[in-house]
């Protein structure tokens, strides 16, 4: 018997695993029929999930934490047993603004610390407080941008204006001069570069080498009551993710995502992010970023509790969440490695032995303890070299110089 599941998404490259699960038969093999519902704002995606109009959603990881903590409209306990991707974001700035930075885009991207300091200097030269588009207050993009700006002494709440707008409106807003740049998932940064409106200033993968992006979020009670269906879905997604990671399939994947039902954008723009061939300035040769976006390798989908807690630490840092043991426990509990393990126990997916790890501590590929198969974790450093110990959140937070 086929089980029908409704899943909401936003048109972004990292919906790839869900789209491939549906279009390439992985869901069908598990007796699932996926009804993928395109939405235009994170608010609507959230409401559809919270009020039960869909069973799952392609959600910003920080938004799942925020909804659970009651920070974004109707509070609801959400659960994320599966990460749909790691990395994939890009900061682009208007050409005029980028002119004040290192003229070579490749060296800007390679050295985020220098780029942040150049950016700080460029703020003073700009005709107004730079207006930078972010897709949501509770997005990995916004947290990453804040982290990066603050490293150069820029107060993201005082020295720049962060304007929230959905990814699909970013290019238009840049064109109209309403924003001076934006950070978003692909293909929107590439679209702005291609239109000759902006240049790449930073890529997520160089800010945090393995940055948490979208998760598959459920209402916690639905997840508990439908464990068998959840397990089948996770198995289908794990196989789809392997397919999406394979460079041989990137062309087919880009064409699939280009479909009007998904991104409705040109496939060659979509492919840049998938294959890590980043064109940083219109007309120039692409710069290779093989880790620009990951779907499967290195146990990418595994929801490390420490990553949910890193998100929590940043929400506390910026005064968005109140720091308390209860909140920390709630936030950490959003990521569900237990469900991941249960669902994929019988598969060949490498299974980490632990549920938490230090974040930012791996400098070069590292073989780690795994219940089965070989598991190598890729480098996961933050560009400033900080290491997040989920057991020592207070010390970690104390280590940041207050920019205010």
């Amino acid at each position, binding site marked *: 018997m086929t089980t029908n599941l409704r899943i909401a998404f936003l048109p972004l490259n990292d919906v790839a695993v869900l789209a491939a699960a549906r279009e390439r038969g992985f869901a069908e093999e598990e007796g699932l029929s996926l009804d993928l519902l395109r939405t*235009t*704002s994170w608010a609507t995606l959230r409401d559809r999930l919270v*009020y039960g109009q869909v069973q799952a959603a392609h959600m910003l990881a920080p938004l799942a934490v925020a909804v659970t903590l009651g920070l974004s*409209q*109707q509070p609801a306990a959400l659960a994320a047993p599966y990460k749909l991707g790691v990395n994939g974001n890009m900061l682009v700035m208007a050409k005029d603004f980028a002119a004040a930075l290192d003229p070579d885009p490749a060296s800007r991207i390679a050295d985020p610390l220098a780029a942040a300091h150049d950016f700080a200097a460029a703020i003073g030269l700009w005709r107004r407080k730079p207006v930078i588009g972010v897709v949501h207050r509770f997005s990995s993009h916004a947290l990453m941008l804040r982290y990066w700006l603050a490293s150069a002494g820029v107060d993201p709440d005082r020295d720049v204006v962060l304007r*929230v707008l*959905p990814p699909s409106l970013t290019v238009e807003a840049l064109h109209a001069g*309403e924003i001076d740049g934006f950070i978003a998932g692909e293909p929107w940064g590439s679209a702005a570069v291609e239109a000759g409106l902006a240049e790449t200033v930073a890529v997520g993968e160089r800010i945090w080498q393995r940055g948490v992006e979208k998760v598959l979020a459920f209402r916690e009670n639905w997840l508990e009551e439908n464990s068998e269906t959840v397990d089948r879905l996770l198995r289908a997604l794990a196989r789809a993710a392997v397919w999406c990671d394979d460079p041989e399939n990137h062309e087919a994947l880009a064409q699939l995502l280009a479909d009007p039902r998904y991104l409705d954008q040109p496939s060659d723009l979509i492919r840049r992010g998938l294959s890590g061939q980043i064109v940083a300035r219109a007309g120039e040769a692409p710069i290779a970023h093989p880790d620009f976006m990951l779907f499967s390798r290195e146990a990418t989908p595994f929801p490390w509790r420490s990553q949910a807690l890193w998100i929590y630490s940043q929400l506390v840092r910026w005064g968005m969440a109140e720091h308390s043991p209860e909140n920390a426990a709630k936030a950490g509990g959003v990521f569900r490695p237990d469900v991941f393990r249960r669902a994929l126990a019988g598969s060949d997916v490498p299974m980490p032995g632990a549920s938490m790890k230090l974040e930012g501590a791996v400098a070069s590929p590292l073989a780690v303890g795994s219940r089965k198969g070989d598991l190598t974790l890729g480098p996961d450093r933050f560009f400033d070299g900080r290491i997040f110990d989920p057991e020592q959140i207070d010390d970690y937070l104390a280590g940041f110089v207050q920019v205010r």
Partner: protein
Amino acid sequence: MRIVIIDDSGLRATVLEEGLREAGYDDIHIVPPRGAFVARLERMAPDVVLMDLGSPSRDTLEEMLTVSRALARPIAMFVDQSDEAMIGAAIDAGVSAYVVDGLRKERVKPVLELAVRRFNAFARIQAELEEARNALSDRKVIDRAKSILMAQRSLSEQEAYALLRSSAMNQGKKIVDVAQALITASDLLGGGL
């Protein structure tokens, strides 16, 4: 009670505004979600904000509701979180509502119910328009196919139409699809019409 409708489509906003006025609400403002709409909204200090759930500007609006100092109290989505039927109906109709915290729900509920009815009515009108538009373009396609048949097989208009219809019936397809296939084939073969 001051109601602000944020809407891109002038028609839907008008349909909603009319309904609200008929029901006796007279302090209604329509704001398109463009440019500095957030600042306008702040100056208006609305009690209720109604918006299309499908509008991409919802994230922008919610951010403003979060950081605004001008709007004294936080604003919450929907009227009564326990009223699931109402919430379901609102989502189905594509209505999102933000209500000043503390406003009595008996006062807001009729507004929301009316918005749901009007949004549904608007969706029906849209569907009908779309249908009419399709019918019009279907007609054009069929007319072109007819003229190809008339020229190439020396048929009368009725005969050409009868031929299209019987082919469609035999193939279990719509007439417009058969006509489209004919036009494509004719273009490929350089039929010149």
